[in-house]
Each structure stands twice: as structure tokens, then as C-alpha cells.
């Protein structure tokens, strides 16, 4: 209308914005990618949340060989005694159908497997039921409060896992695909700034974070009542630096790979050990002390530890300075290496 020069020059458009827009469009037009990024973590949290929900205490199965013993143990609702012959009772213990066998005395004998926690528990409960006067007075505090359940442990782990796989697949795989399709070559035949091209991936990951986090955390809050004890801003900050670290690793695995099979292999090689050993589904403390130093320097371990410290323990910046530093160094080192190695054709 009032632009007489429009015929010569279209409105200036920012290449960084156009590149980022292209990345977002390509993502949201790929239903598979949307599912794996947003839907899958929710399904996983539901499945695991149900599998490991806090159940009301099940009574412990115990085998007894006399009706008198059966009556004494029935007095404790935590025990479920069954009257069996002695050999049957031993068989039941051996096959795990009961956790304890009580033989009539005198003296009363307990058959149990001290290597099994349930078995030791059954012994203690039975002993207390049979000798009530000797039992010390106790108060029970069952753990069902938000903040200390499995789901509270799991959700930050899933968030970390999601940041990792979105960075690796969403950048590493996509870049190699662009290379095999000669699209990278076509782009470098234009005056496009290579830095802006790489930045578009970083901007995309940052924007995505603002969607991924509310979806997963909002869902966990609504369905499981998972709370964020610490500051949301700090949680966002930790997630951001984690996303950047995995963006850098994604770029690095994509730097030279010439086909998607190679990069798929590399991505799995990087991700699988961290899936298992970086405390997504269970604590890294389960691994032997000797490997702990190695686990601590894995980026996903640092990210998960940082996220849990903020979400569950309400840690401040100083409490997770080590994790933030490790992720920062990972980001800087991987971006640097990726840029040095990157093959544009």
C-alpha cells in the first residue's frame, strides 16, 4: 500500500528467526516426534507411578505348625499365619510362599532367610507378637507424604531423561539427516551464517523447554501431587543448562557422521549408559562405590542430581553449584569441539 519499493525488496526477515521457525514447524508436523517428546514421559510416569504406588501394608505370610501359634500370631494384623505340616512349611519357605516358619517349642524356633529383608521383618514381627511384654513401645510413621515417595524421585529423573533424548535426537539425528539429504550443502551455498544455523537449534531447545517442563511437571502435580519445593526459576535454570549440554553433545555426535545409521549408533552409545546409570529410575547409590566417581561426572547424573536437589530438597544455587559447573563445562567443550569438527557437506 504505502511501500513503493516493495517490488524491489521484500520485508527484511531475520534468518535466525526463519531457521528457528522452520525447526519448530518441522517438529510439530511430525506426530511421532511430538509423541516421544511430550506423550512418552507422561505415559512412563503413569506406568511407573502405578507400579510403584504406595500400597497399604500387606500382611506378612508366615507358616506355623500348631493351632496355638496360629492364634497368637493372628493377634497381629501385620501377620498372616497359615497352619501347615512341618515339611510343607519348610517347602513354603523355600519357594518364597511364606517369609518365616515358626516351629512349636519349647523353645520356639524361627526358620527364616536372613538374606531376605522380608524374612527378617517377619521374624521380628512374630517375635514381638509371641513376647508382647518384651516388645518396646514404638510409634509408627508410615511414609506416604509427598516428597519422599518413588514418584517424587522419578519425575525429576524423567525430566532429565527427556532433556537428554530431545537434545540427542532432535539435534544430532536431524542434523545428520540434513547432511544426507544434501540440505546442509544447499544451505552453505547461500550466505546463511553458519553460527545462526547452529543457534537456531539452541533457540529451539530453549523454547521447547518452556513447553516440556510445564507439561510434565503440571501433569505430575495434578495426577500425583508432586510438588516443587525449591525455586521454579532455579529449576528452569538447571533444565536450561542441561538442555544446552545435551544440545552440545547432540551437535558433537552429528559433527561428522555421514549417515543416519552411524548417528543412531552414536546416540545410543551415549544415551544407554546414562539411562541405566545416571539415576533416572533408581538411585545411582545402588552402584558400587568404586564406580561412583565415574557416574558423578556423567552429564545426566549431574542434571538429575541438580533437578532433584531443587525439586525435592529445595536446594539453592550454592547447593548445586557443582552440577551447574559440570553442565556448563560440558556445554562449552562440546560446542567448541563440534564447531571444530563440523562437516557442512
Amino acid at each position: 500500500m504505502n511501500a513503493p519499493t516493495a517490488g524491489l525488496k521484500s520485508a527484511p526477515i531475520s534468518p535466525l528467526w526463519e531457521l528457528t521457525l522452520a525447526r519448530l514447524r518441522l517438529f510439530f508436523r511430525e506426530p511421532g516426534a511430538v509423541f516421544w517428546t511430550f506423550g512418552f514421559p507422561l505415559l512412563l510416569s503413569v506406568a511407573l507411578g502405578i507400579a510403584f504406588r504406595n500400597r497399604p501394608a500387606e500382611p506378612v505370610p508366615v507358616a506355623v505348625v500348631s493351632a496355638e501359634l496360629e492364634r497368637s500370631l493372628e493377634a497381629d494384623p501385620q501377620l498372616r499365619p497359615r497352619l501347615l505340616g512341618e515339611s510343607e512349611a519348610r517347602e513354603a519357605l523355600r519357594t518364597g510362599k511364606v517369609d518365616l516358619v515358626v516351629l512349636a517349642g519349647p523353645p520356639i524356633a524361627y526358620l527364616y532367610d536372613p538374606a531376605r529383608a522380608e524374612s527378617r521383618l517377619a521374624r521380628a514381627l512374630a517375635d514381638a507378637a509371641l513376647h508382647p511384654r518384651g516388645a518396646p513401645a514404638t510409634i509408627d510413621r508410615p511414609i506416604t507424604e509427598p516428597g519422599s515417595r518413588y514418584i517424587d524421585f522419578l519425575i525429576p529423573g524423567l525430566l532429565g531423561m527427556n532433556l537428554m533424548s530431545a537434545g540427542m535426537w532432535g539435534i544430532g539425528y536431524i542434523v545428520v539427516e540434513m547432511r544426507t539429504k544434501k540440505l546442509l550443502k544447499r544451505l552453505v551455498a547461500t550466505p546463511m551464517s553458519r553460527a545462526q544455523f547452529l543457534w537456531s537449534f539452541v533457540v529451539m531447545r530453549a523454547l521447547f523447554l518452556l513447553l516440556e517442563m510445564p507439561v510434565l511437571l503440571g501433569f505430575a502435580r495434578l495426577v500425583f501431587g508432586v510438588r516443587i519445593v525449591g525455586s521454579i526459576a532455579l529449576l528452569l535454570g538447571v533444565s536450561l543448562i542441561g538442555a544446552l549440554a545435551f544440545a552440545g553433545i547432540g551437535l558433537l555426535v552429528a559433527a561428522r557422521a555421514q549417515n543416519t545409521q552411524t548417528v543412531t549408533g552414536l546416540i545410543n552409545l551415549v544415551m544407554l549408559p546414562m539411562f541405566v546409570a545416571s539415576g533416572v529410575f533408581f538411585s545411582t547409590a545402588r552402584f558400587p562405590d568404586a564406580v561412583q566417581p565415574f557416574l558423578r561426572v556423567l552429564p545426566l547424573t549431574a542434571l538429575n542430581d541438580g533437578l532433584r536437589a531443587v525439586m525435592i530438597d529445595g536446594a539453592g544455587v550454592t547447593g548445586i553449584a557443582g552440577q551447574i559447573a559440570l553442565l556448563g563445562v560440558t556445554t562449552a567443550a562440546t560446542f567448541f569441539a563440534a564447531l571444530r569438527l563440523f562437516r557442512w557437506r
Partner: protein
Amino acid sequence: MPSTPALRCEQLVKKYGDLAAVDGLDLEVDGGECFGLLGPNGAGKTTTVEILEGLNEPTAGRVEVLGMRWDRDERALRQRLGVSLQETHLPDKLTVEENLRMFRSFYLQGRPIEEVLELVGLSDKRASWTERLSGGQKQRLAVACALVSDPELLFLDEPTTGLDPQSRRQLWDVVLGFKSRGRTVLLTTHYMDEAERLCDRVAIVDKGKVIALGTPRELIASLGAQQVVEFVTERPLAPDGWGGLPSVRSARRSADGIALTVEQLHVALPAILARAEPLGLTHLSTHQASLEDVFVHLTGRHLRE
């Protein structure tokens, strides 16, 4: 003012191990002309073009584009070139318009997207995803991406391979329109009719070297003959002796018979018939000499085989 050529390369060499894909190639393309590289598969056309586009490093030789050099002036050069590679897979799930807009954003100036869409005949497909375009439409989109910057120099590597005749003609019009604005085009092709129709000058490339250079008309005239006669007889024949017939310039073996280049058909034909008929003539045809015949004449092989 001495005009610098739009493109110049001297003694260009590109080696892949022992194989010399480009083997001492010289080229000079003037501003405003449409120049064609014609050659069979593996001749080194793409390798040459990608070196000129600054996408591949030569093993040896000098390259000048618009008077500039890749090692010094890459940024400035990229603003002024339009490139369509032999194969590029544009993002499947971006629309035609989104693709063009992205490419347009890389350049400081260029043509309005609507105008370019109109030019390549994709206006009604602007909202379609790339993956839903036909092969010819994809190729036209690739050319459109090279045109959005309104380049001074356009590289087209086999722009019409695999297209139906109508789409090819449509692309030819795009190239001719571009040239009529005084711009320069370097294109590669396997099709001699395309080279004859579009190109002011043609270099025939074989095994990494230029084996003939000139306007299509000059190259055909270099055969010294306007017509080609091909025939097949029942008994197999050797080409010897046929070259001596009146008005026949050369003779060679063709696919399943003999091919003669002929200056004047009405003089040569009676003599050819008189000699071929006793041998059991089963087929005879004639056509206007083309660049294909020039290539066959120079190498003894066909362009596409």
C-alpha cells in the same frame, strides 16, 4: 573498461584418489550469456560446477567468479550467486512458501516471493508441503530457491533431468526469462536439445576435459555435414569404404548398423541406396545433425548410454 568474465577457471584439476574427476579444465563464461556443460555421466560436470560454486576444493587450478576469489571473497560472492544442486532434498514438511521465505531470509536483497512463485508456476502450490509435490514441481521449487535472491549468476546442475516435456519447456522459459534480464547462467545437461535451445555457448566435457567448445551451431557445423543417415542391413557391415561416397563426410558403426554424416542428402542418398540394397537393406533413417552427433563423432560413444 576491460570486461571481466563472469566465470573463469584455468587448468582445473580435482582428484579423488587415483581418479581425476576433473583433469585440466579451462572455462570462460561471459556476463549475460547462458553457458552449457554437456557431457555423459561421470564426465565431471557436477564436480566442476561445485568447485565454481565454492562448495568443493580443487586439487589444482585457478577459479575466478565475478572477478572474485573464493578464498578471499566468499561472503560477498554468496550474496550474488544462485545455486541449484543436482540433488537436494528440501525439508519434507515445510510448504513451498515457507521454504522460499527461509532461503530469502539469508540474502540482503532479492525478489518478492510471490513473483518467484509466479515465475516457476508454483503459485497454486504455495501452501503445499514439499513432500506432496511432484518430481517436476520439486525441481521447479529448487530453481525458485536459487532465484529468490535475484542473483547475477545462476548455477543449474541438470535442472530438467527426469521431467516431462511440458515441465522442461516451462523451466526453459524460466531460464530464458532470467537471461533476458542480462544475467548469466551456467547449466549442465545431458540433453542436446536443451543445450541447443538455451545455450549461447556449449562446452562438451568428457573425462574431466573440455573436448569441444563453441555455439551449438558452430559445433554442428564442425562436422562439415548437416545430415546423418543411419541404416541397417541383413549382413553385418564394416564402416570402411562408405566415407568415399559422394557428399559423405564420415562413416562409423552405430548401434546395429552404420551411421554416415552427410553434407547434401539428395546427392548422397542414391549412392548409399545403390550400395546398401544388394546387402539386404532392412532399415534407413535420416535426421538433422545435432550436438549428440558431435559428441559421438569426437568420442565414438553416445552421451547417454
